[in-house]
């Protein structure tokens, strides 16, 4: 009981927000202490709600090119934590935010300082830091991390305008997804874990063709021109962020099929930084050694082109990293479970959890190759990281009361 008293006092002083619940339809999506206080002086009808969260919000950064919020990675990640992530009910229908019971995902495009016309006038792409308000991004992420709700602007991707803000309440897991999560040094400090999705040019071209060829206005040349025109800004501002990421998922064309340019079979590398607090890299057989593994053989039969794994230590931008690589694709369920049983340090709570998660979303793109597998594994690692952080934070006040 002593512990809880100390804890409450601490949170009341630093991490509470007092709000008039005019927008209460957004709903409470996390467990928190709520005090209802009726003001008896002038306004009879007003109730002041003091909402406090324990300040244990874990902030994850995800850097990915164009488009946010509804991407496959986010859906896999929120699914690992349980619950379906949906746009906020009753709010702006073009909101980029996703909210589930434990997670809130925001799109960093909402921090654009210039809307589409503004950028066109200045001749600046969305990739350029000049089009983004990093000060506001830093302030709001800091506020969420310390348990204070914020009014975040909305960037409407359809109209290209900046819409009126929406209320974001501090969740347990706060994911910021976009082009520049690790660009600003102050925001980088706030991130508990960061991921960079590095898609190689050939694969990006193949994916964009698949996505855009159905559109009336597009042709092969226009898709190519679009990628080429954005490349200079991308290489200058977005690409350098990968050196700061704790995990990089690199997607390359396969080496198993010579001259495959459809981008169907992929070679995916999970590059994990060593020495990151609460993060233990996944490994194959023996940590720190170099392994090359082809699971298909006598015990497991795979169809063409098969599966090839490799694992080993490397250096990446001057850091020590461990790289787990998968080339090829899964055909059947038993291939997946076989592989899962040979991977170590995947932070699953029960045998077959990775397979279960992959099967749950079998219709998502990448469910049969390394992209889906590594995204799911990273999701489990983030859950493990969250639980470790929470355990360490609740351990601290216990220590304080003991002395």
């Amino acid at each position, binding site marked *: 009981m002593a512990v809880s008293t100390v804890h409450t006092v601490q949170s009341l002083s630093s991490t509470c927000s007092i709000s008039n619940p005019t927008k209460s339809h957004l709903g409470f999506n996390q467990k928190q202490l709520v005090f209802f206080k009726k003001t008896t002086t002038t306004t009879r009808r007003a109730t002041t709600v003091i909402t406090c969260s324990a300040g244990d919000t874990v902030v994850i950064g995800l850097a990915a090119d*164009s*488009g946010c919020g*509804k991407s496959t990675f986010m859906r896999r990640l929120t699914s690992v934590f349980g619950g379906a992530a949906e746009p906020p*009910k*009753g709010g702006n*229908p*073009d909101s980029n935010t996703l909210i589930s019971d434990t997670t809130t995902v925001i799109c960093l495009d909402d921090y654009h300082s210039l809307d*589409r016309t503004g*950028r*066109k006038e*200045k*001749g*600046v*792409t*969305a*990739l350029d830091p000049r089009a983004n308000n990093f000060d506001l991004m830093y302030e709001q992420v800091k506020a969420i991390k310390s348990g204070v709700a914020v009014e975040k602007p909305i960037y409407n*991707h*359809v109209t*290209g305008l900046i819409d009126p803000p929406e209320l974001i309440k501090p969740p347990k897991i706060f994911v910021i997804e976009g082009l520049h999560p690790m660009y600003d040094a102050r925001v980088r400090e706030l991130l508990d874990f960061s991921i960079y999705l590095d898609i190689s040019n050939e694969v990006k071209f193949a994916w*964009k063709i698949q*996505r*855009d060829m*159905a*559109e*009336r*206005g*597009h042709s092969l040349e*226009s898709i190519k*021109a*679009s990628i080429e*025109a*954005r490349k*200079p*800004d991308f290489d200058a501002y977005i690409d350098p962020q990968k050196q700061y990421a704790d995990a990089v998922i690199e997607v390359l064309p396969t080496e198993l099929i010579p001259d495959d340019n459809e981008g169907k079979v992929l070679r995916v590398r999970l590059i994990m930084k060593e020495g990151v607090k609460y993060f233990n890299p996944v490994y194959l057989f023996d940590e720190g050694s170099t392994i090359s593994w082809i699971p298909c053989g006598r015990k497991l039969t795979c169809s063409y082109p098969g599966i090839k794994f490799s694992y080993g230590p490397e250096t990446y931008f001057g850091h020590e990293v461990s790289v787990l690589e998968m080339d090829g694709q899964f055909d059947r369920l038993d291939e997946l479970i076989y592989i899962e049983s040979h991977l170590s340090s995947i932070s699953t709570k029960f045998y077959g959890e990775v397979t279960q998660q992959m099967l749950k979303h079998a219709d998502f793109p990448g469910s049969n190759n390394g992209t889906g597998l590594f995204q799911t594994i990273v999701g489990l690692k983030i859950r493990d990281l969250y639980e470790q952080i929470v355990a360490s934070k609740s351990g601290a006040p216990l220590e304080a009361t003991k002395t």
Partner: protein
Amino acid sequence: MHITALGTTLHITIPMAGVAGVIITTPQVLALESPRKLQSVKFSLLNNPWKRCTKFGWGRMYVHPVAATPEGISEKVAESVKKAEEACSENPVAGECAAAWDEVEELSAAASHARDKKKDSDPLEDYCKENPETDECRTYDN
């Protein structure tokens, strides 16, 4: 037609039966259409009564979808590609060219998201998510 002359005044009474038939239908038009549309709608509806049925679904109101449909976004994508090609034909290295193609990319992504959303959205499910207590959305467990 009945004409009577009383002193210097002339009274003309016209049987109202034929005219009454016309007047009866117009109040329906008045109730459903806004007054300023009255002039153009009144006559076209009277002359083409089949149009009334298709427009209002056999007497019920037809609710048009309000959100941006993929059709609207599709138009935007096509437009933006044309504008980008124009902007770049003048000066391929300038910021305007890059910004124009960036816009194309943004709109293509939005179009793709809209397509995905439309693909797995069920109008009844969406309605029931917001209003679970209505008759259509009630579920019974026994």
